[in-house]
């Protein structure tokens, strides 16, 4: 197999070509090839394909999922999801390092099945969500496969709306007050710039993921800048640099290559440095964010903050 590092650039594979019958043992591959090209196959193919197109066309016309609630379709969709979506959206659609948790009943970009179909087909401009079949990875999914995936996602949704357990109003007070979150994090245009922007996080991450990143901020560093052609995004690594004239700079890396680094310090100043001119350059995967244990932030308080983030993220 060729370049599988591309998993990181998202990988939809499936084709609009209908599925052929399985290769049977009694046919050798030459016969199989002839069979594929044979008129019989072609006719059968056309009839089958026309049927699918008709079904999907009717469904598209009334904006409904022709496979809604079909358990078999959901199972097929689970496999399609795993190949095409899970890298970003996680196994079980519960959100990965990059893509939102799709088990929430309330989603940021889509509500109806028809909207979901549009988003999967066309992507979401300005986000990492690509249009089906545009990544140079095969020819994309068929309409039927997209409906199967939607059926699967619906089957995974938590039926009772993920009503946050906490008190969002109190969570907001904590976020901007005693919790000191807003010193580094911005929500809805208010807050600091040193850490990741969190306006959408409540809509895209599970409650468990948010709690874990507050309790163990160094366990998995948040992703920063993603460059279009680069395989890996920048992470929020901590950094210490000492310039030629002895000035010490600490902060997080906005970006970095072998020769230069762009650092934001706690005062939100951006430092543009050439590595060969530094006396010291030291990176750390110990997050710049303090570890909030239960002594600092009780479980109840943390639930309140999560509730606030979810209430903002759902908007």
């Amino acid at each position, binding site marked *: *197999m*060729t*370049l*599988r*590092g*591309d*998993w*990181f650039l998202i990988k939809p*594979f*499936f*084709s*609009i*070509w209908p*599925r*052929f019958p*399985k*290769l049977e*043992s009694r046919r*050798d*591959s030459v016969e*199989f*090839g002839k069979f*594929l*090209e044979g008129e019989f196959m072609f006719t059968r193919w056309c009839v089958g394909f026309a049927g699918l197109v008709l079904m999907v066309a009717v469904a598209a016309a009334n904006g409904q999922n022709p496979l809604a609630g079909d358990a078999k379709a959901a199972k097929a969709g689970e*496999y399609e999801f*795993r*190949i095409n979506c*899970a*890298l970003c959206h996680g*196994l079980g659609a519960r959100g990965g390092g990059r893509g939102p948790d799709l088990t929430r009943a309330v989603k940021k970009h889509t509500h109806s099945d028809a909207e979901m179909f549009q988003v999967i087909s066309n992507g979401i401009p300005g986000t990492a969500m690509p249009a089906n079949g545009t*990544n*140079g*990875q*095969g*020819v994309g999914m068929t309409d039927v496969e997209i409906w199967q995936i939607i059926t699967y996602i619906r089957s995974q949704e938590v039926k009772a709306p993920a009503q946050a357990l906490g008190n969002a109003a109190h969570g907001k007070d904590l976020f901007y007050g005693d919790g000191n979150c807003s010193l580094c994090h911005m929500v809805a245009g208010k807050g600091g710039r040193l850490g990741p922007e969190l306006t959408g996080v409540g809509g895209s991450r599970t409650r468990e993921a948010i709690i874990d990143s507050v309790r163990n901020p*160094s*366990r*998995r*560093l948040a992703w920063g800048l993603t*460059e*279009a*052609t*680069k*395989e*890996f995004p920048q*992470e929020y690594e901590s950094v210490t640099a000492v310039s030629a004239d002895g000035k010490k700079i600490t902060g997080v890396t906005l970006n*970095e*290559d*072998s*020769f230069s680094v762009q650092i934001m310090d706690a005062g939100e100043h951006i430092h543009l440095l050439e590595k060969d001119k530094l006396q010291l350059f030291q990176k750390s*995967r110990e997050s710049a964010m303090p570890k909030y244990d239960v002594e600092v932030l009780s479980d109840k308080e943390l639930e309140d903050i999560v509730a606030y983030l979810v209430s903002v993220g759902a908007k």
Partner: protein
Amino acid sequence: MRRRVAGENSFVMHTGRSLNHRGHGEMPLRSLRDLALLTACFACWFVASPARAQVTFERLVNSAKEPQNWMTYSGDYSGKRFSGLDQIHVANARTLVAKWVYQTTATGKLETTPLVVDGILYATAQDNRAFALDARTGRPIWMYQRQLPGDIRPCCGRVNRGLAILGDKVFMGTLDAHVVALDAKTGAVVWEVVAADYRIGHSFTVAPLAVKNLVVIGVSGGEYGVRGFIDAYDADTGERKWRFYTVPGPGEPGHETWEGDSWKVGGAPAWNTGTYDAVTNQIFWPTGNPAPSNRGEGRAGDNLYSNSLLALNADTGKMNWYFQFTKHDEHDWDATQVPVMIDAGGKLLIAQANRNGYFYVLDRSTGKLMSATAFGKITWSDTKDAEGRPVEKKEASPTLEGHTVCPGAAGTTNFMAPTYDPQTALFYVTARDQCDTFSTAPQPYEAGHAYYGSAYFPSDEAEPYRGYLKAIDPATGEIKWKFEHTSPTWSGVLSTAGGLLFSGDAEGNFIAFEAASGKPLWHFQMGGAVYAAPMAFAVDGKEYVAIAAGSAVYAFGLP
């Protein structure tokens, strides 16, 4: 006569070096003028030399005699990716400047290695674009783009790694599994042939290799369960002269290494360019993993000739010997890395830095394994068999729940071209340390559908993936030095007679290294990640180094 010119060239080089040393990098104006004069004389020879339209097989065999040209994917038949040019060298590399940029307008990854013959550069881009440029200025002479069907099945990007040239034609394999011959002067299609049915997953991404009057090319499509093959086409007519199936059929030796009918969809594609030994008339071509890539159930056996190096008779395609690197692979560890012919200590060797993390040296007359040493982080093997081949641990096999193995599916290295520098006698390769969690799941074969039998995911470790440029001593397998990139790169490596290495990084830098030490001497930010391998050429007596990055091709030279 050409030898004398090479002498003049190195004279220029030495003059430059001594001036640099005397002046601590600041060359006196007068000496600069001397240098310019010498360079001009050198240039005169090339200008005066008759333009030779035909690229003959003899020229390809003797490519070392015309280092100004880069006529095959790896620069010569031996796969060394070494340029005999030395005008750009350790002492002046820091003065390199961009000479031109050619925007392809293609999106995705550019994996092409350009060819240059007599002042014209030929390269490819995504979706089977091909183009010819004035190699001095980057100005296009012709452009070709194939009209591809909407339902082609590339695995990993709509990529192409380059052309072959022979006579007055250039040759390209296409994503819809055709082989196309283009007029080298106009880009017009001279012939095109169908190699296989693209609808069930065949495609070509490889740069073909022209040998004698044949265009040799290997198929891609292991991801779709194709039965791999290597083809040879008559360069004049496009007629297929031979085909070697990398998965033996009934009655053929090796067929017994496949369970039941698994051979029919066994993969073992051949998607990277091989090398050729004119003395023994053998083509050395590497093969990819068996299909499905991460599930061995249903294909019990060694699965020959997947993950192997094949020695084929160039005239007939008959196999002389094979060596299988990874038996019954379940980790997507294609052995498709360029096999590099090395002559050392009176021995005729062939070396490969393999995706499975081992650096192998074989006797290229017999295929006998001489040594296998790890060049990256490895957890899949801790023993070797009687021949010295690393053997997989049972526990390394993927499971339903997922099992973490190093290297990951991307491998310790991949398609990125390595280089062997005869001056340092070191082998240089782009390497990565990354582990993946491999999980397996039943997946029936369906024609034209992806056929992995699995999924794999980055392992949950917080440890970031690491990327390196490593210098390996083929005599011992020892890592002489390594340079750590900011993140893993897919760039190949070039070595030159100027004592330099060139490679790119994922952050978009093109970097010149001192080959002896790995010290970076110069870099240029190209604004897009590198997935291609560099090459060098000269026109009018001036040396250039070229590489594709982002969606453009860049050429660099001295001011």
